[in-house]
């Protein structure tokens, strides 16, 4: 029997902010974090004096590689006037800021700190695509790189194993892409706030303008099957199966539960947190699930006393379309091998019974890797407080949401359950 874990004392979120995600020539990591921090400060209903913040935990994967600058904890601490208070950087590849969030929760739960700022940042777009690919590949396992695997390649291999075991195909991946793109225009922070149909229209117009042959796409899937419009990256991953290269920052203010009402009448509570570690491709007996996600989910469900059905909506780490299918199964929302059918039936749409990635997901919102984990929690916080505007989940009595973050090729996975009381 797995030990049921609990926090030493409760922790609540009383403020959150994120920068717009995108590729910014005229903004750097500090500018983006300042943008997120200012929104966070404004979001605290009864106000926060930054002098009250005890410590900072900051997720960053590899600005060392992307920007030739390491040691981002104190840089951000200085930026927001937190020095000489402690600033700690966490690294778990694409799950770096979910780890910062966990460290912040633990620091408060232990009784050591009362008010903690957590967040993340990444600045990637000033490098070429090849350089970014090389930087990201630092988070695969060594044998994968030697066999020529890239990040999309690893998830491509996972997809072939999933297809072979469960009888899914590329069209099922397209359903994920189309769904995420339908949510994206409703999110003002998204890097690509366009539906697939919007993109098709703009390509048709551009072809007409240039006097090129006008493509004859009958629907979104015809567009996604067109090799020219949607070229192969790493079979069966094509361009529209992959998240973009992004810059961005995110942050959240965590406080001890007993003092949450000093900051807001509508705090969001940390109900369950879990984290797991996983092995490389070759060391897994079955490539159709991530053991680290299953472990993290068990821990979070055990702590919260909830079941997967109790989680009303979730953000999951869709770095590639196939990943979303695995996650919604690993988190227990759908049985293994049935996620692709659930997506095809519309179960994960914004107006479906289990909305997934209402933000547009990594695919459309963007994936500045170190900022992603806390940006997923930002989306859940926004939804639970009923402030998601046109993308508000239309479920009555929205109380419970989840955020799943994955680092590397499944080496670090987290699952966090938040509650509005």
């Amino acid at each position: 029997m797995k030990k049921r874990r609990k926090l030493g004392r409760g922790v609540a979120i009383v403020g959150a902010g994120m920068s717009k995600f995108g590729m910014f020539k005229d903004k750097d990591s500090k500018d983006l974090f300042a943008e997120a921090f200012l929104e966070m400060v404004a979001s605290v209903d009864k106000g926060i004096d930054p002098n009250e913040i005890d410590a900072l935990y900051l997720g960053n994967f590899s600005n060392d590689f992307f920007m030739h600058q390491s040691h981002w904890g104190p840089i951000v601490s200085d930026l927001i006037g937190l020095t000489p208070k402690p600033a700690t950087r966490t690294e778990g590849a694409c799950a770096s800021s979910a780890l910062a969030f966990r460290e912040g929760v633990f620091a408060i739960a232990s009784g050591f700190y009362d008010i903690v700022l957590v967040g993340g940042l990444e600045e990637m777009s000033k490098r070429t695509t090849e350089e970014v690919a090389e930087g990201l590949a630092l988070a695969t396992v060594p044998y994968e790189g030697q066999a020529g695997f890239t990040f999309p390649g690893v998830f491509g291999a996972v997809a072939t194993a999933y297809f072979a075991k469960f009888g899914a195909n590329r069209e099922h991946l397209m359903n994920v892409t189309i769904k995420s793109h339908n949510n994206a225009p409703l999110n003002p922070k998204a890097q690509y706030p366009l539906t697939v149909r919007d993109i098709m229209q703009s390509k048709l117009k551009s072809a007409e303008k240039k006097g090129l042959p006008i493509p004859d796409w009958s629907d979104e899937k015809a567009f996604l099957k067109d090799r020219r419009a949607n070229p192969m990256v790493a079979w069966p991953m094509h361009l529209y199966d992959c998240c973009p290269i992004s810059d961005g920052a995110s942050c959240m203010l965590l406080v001890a539960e007993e003092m949450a009402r000093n900051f807001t009448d509508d705090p969001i509570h940390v109900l369950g947190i879990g984290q797991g570690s996983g092995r490389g491709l070759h060391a897994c007996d079955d490539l159709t699930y991530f053991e680290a996600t299953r472990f993290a989910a068990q821990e979070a469900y055990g702590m919260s006393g909830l079941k997967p059905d109790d989680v009303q909506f979730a953000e999951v780490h869709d770095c590639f379309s196939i990943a979303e299918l695995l996650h919604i199964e690993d988190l227990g929302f759908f049985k293994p091998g049935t996620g692709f059918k659930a997506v095809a039936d519309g179960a994960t749409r914004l107006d479906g019974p289990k909305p997934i990635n209402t933000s547009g997901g990594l695919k459309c919102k963007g994936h500045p890797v170190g900022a992603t984990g806390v940006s997923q929690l930002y989306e859940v916080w926004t939804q639970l407080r009923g402030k998601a505007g046109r993308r508000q989940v239309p479920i009555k009595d929205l109380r419970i949401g989840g955020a799943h973050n994955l680092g590397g090729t499944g080496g670090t996975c987290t699952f966090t359950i938040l509650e509005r009381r």
Partner: protein
Amino acid sequence: MENRPFSDISFEAFLTEGKLMGSRCGHCGKHYVPPRPICPGCHGMQMDWVEMSGKGKLAAFTCIAIGPAAMIAEGYNRHNPYCSAVIELDEGARVDARLEGIDPKKPEEIDVGMPLKVKYGHRGDKRTHLAFEPL
């Protein structure tokens, strides 16, 4: 009796000699390729070197159009993709390797589960790379 350390360096030295070597846990009998000094399954610490038969089947694969610098240097690109794969060996261990003897431009024709045999890629003074091809 082979007494090299159970390391990646030893594994690669064996590859250069044309041998696919792994370790077998003296406690639970499980095989690992590349070798491991500690069995992650049972924490057994008594390992033995075992030469693999070099036969197995395809567990998963991908055909990569946009590869890393090392593959681009070998002449691969979006018009000339290559195939990377996970192979399940007859001994039960799984290994990452390149897949050759197939057409990476026709991934629809590559079947998960197809039988494969080992092939060593020796290219001048560069490192030997592990590959498999259809049996």
